[in-house]
């Protein structure tokens, strides 16, 4: 479980997050949604510790992350996997080297154990036979799958995904969504996904937090969203005429 308690963040006098309190459950795919510039990426990066919050606390399974020193944070970070928007794979390393890096740095596994673990993770994301390729030789979907494999290689307890479907076609997006959800259930991870892909919201949104102008505006599940009367949320989720008609039919 990850909990944010009244967190706020400003950049050069501009408030980006304003008194946000939210809890993300273990074993569920938790989604943060919102318009571009609403503060959802800042929220995700604050939760993971890439931004220090100005006020408020962040808890990882009741351990106050914001109060921890550099070394203690480092210990928690080893339990964190993160999938970045562009994949953030190391350009100078092959697929295998990218996935293997955390094992090299933080485990005392033998060569054979490392090889087996990397093979397992690559098979888990259905990416066999591409381990010798460099990131520049991969398609967008493959990059995301390598990023997932790298994120899960150390058996993380927390998984963060920053717009995992950006730049992908709808079919590949579904594959990535399903993969993240499967991994979340299989390893009982606390997964937080930052997205504005409405297919993801409807398919895997077990818990959804809507961020609007730096505030937590709405919270619920993918089923609740269809029934919600929140005007800002409806404007965002059902932006197109077709989506509005779909909602009225669903109601």
């Amino acid at each position, binding site marked *: 479980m990850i909990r944010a308690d009244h967190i706020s963040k400003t950049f050069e006098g501009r408030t980006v997050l304003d008194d946000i309190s939210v809890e993300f459950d273990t074993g569920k795919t938790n989604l943060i949604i919102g318009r571009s510039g609403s503060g959802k990426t800042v929220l995700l990066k604050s939760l993971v510790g890439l931004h220090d919050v100005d006020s408020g606390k962040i808890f990882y399974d009741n351990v106050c992350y914001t109060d921890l020193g550099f070394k203690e944070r480092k210990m928690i970070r080893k339990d964190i996997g993160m999938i*970045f928007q562009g994949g953030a794979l190391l350009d100078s390393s092959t697929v295998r080297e990218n996935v293997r890096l955390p094992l090299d*740095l933080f485990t005392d596994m033998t060569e054979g154990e490392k090889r087996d673990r990397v093979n397992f993770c690559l098979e888990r994301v259905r990416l066999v036979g591409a381990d010798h390729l460099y990131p520049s030789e991969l398609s967008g979907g493959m990059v995301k799958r390598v990023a997932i494999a790298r994120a899960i290689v150390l058996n993380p307890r927390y998984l963060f995904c920053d717009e995992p479907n950006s730049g992908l076609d709808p079919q590949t997006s579904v594959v990535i969504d399903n993969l993240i959800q499967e991994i979340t259930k299989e390893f009982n991870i606390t997964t937080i996904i930052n997205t504005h892909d409405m297919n993801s919201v409807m398919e895997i949104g077990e818990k959804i937090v809507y961020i609007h102008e730096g505030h937590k505006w709405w919270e619920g599940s993918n089923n609740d969203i269809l029934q919600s009367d929140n005007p800002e949320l409806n404007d965002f989720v059902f932006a197109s005429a077709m989506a509005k008609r779909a909602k009225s039919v669903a109601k």
Partner: protein
Amino acid sequence: MIKLFENIGRYFMLLRKVFSRPEKKSIYARRVSFEIEALGFNSISLTAIISAFIGAVVALQMAITLESPFIPKFMIGYATREVMVLEFSSTVVALILAGKVGSNIASEIGTMRITEQIDALEIMGVNSASYLILPKIIATIIFFPILTLFSIVVGIVGGFVIAYCTGMMLTGDYVEGLFYCFEPFSVTYALVKGAVFAFIITSISAYCGYYAKGNSLEVGRASTLAVVASSVTIMIFDLILTQIMRV
């Protein structure tokens, strides 16, 4: 001015992070050998070409300038050696490498910053500054003095070849000049300068890349800034080291 002090402060804070204890020494050792190849071996041909031509040009210029019956011909070899050892092979080669290696480091690390590769390392719990920068610093500190030595040899050979080909002087005179009043400490001085300049180029360029933000334009700016800042710092330290070590 405040911005300058802010940058200097941030530079030293980054260095503190760079020199903190590495996660796993074996991984760093592997990265150092990779960087020696990427930053060192790949600079050999450029250093060789420039040093050979400069050595030849210096010898030629000396031959023209010192054309007097009162000045012995071996002075050409002597002057070529002094120019190569004292200034060219350490300082000028460092300035040239600031352009090649410095911009390479700044753009590589800058691109890693804007494509979130550095964030990814941080999230894994890796000290990204140490992991990315320390192997480059160690590699260049090891290899740049070797390049300096190589440049001295190639430059002197360049002078010898031009002396032989043009017939402007006897090669024996040139060789005699090379050993005339030779002070071995001057080579030590050149090697020390090579190592110090290697540190300056690598750390400043890495700093410029590490704090790049925004887009590819910013990476380009970081790269340019790295070359300019390294070059200016090299000149300042050239003055300081010359004063301290006085050959």
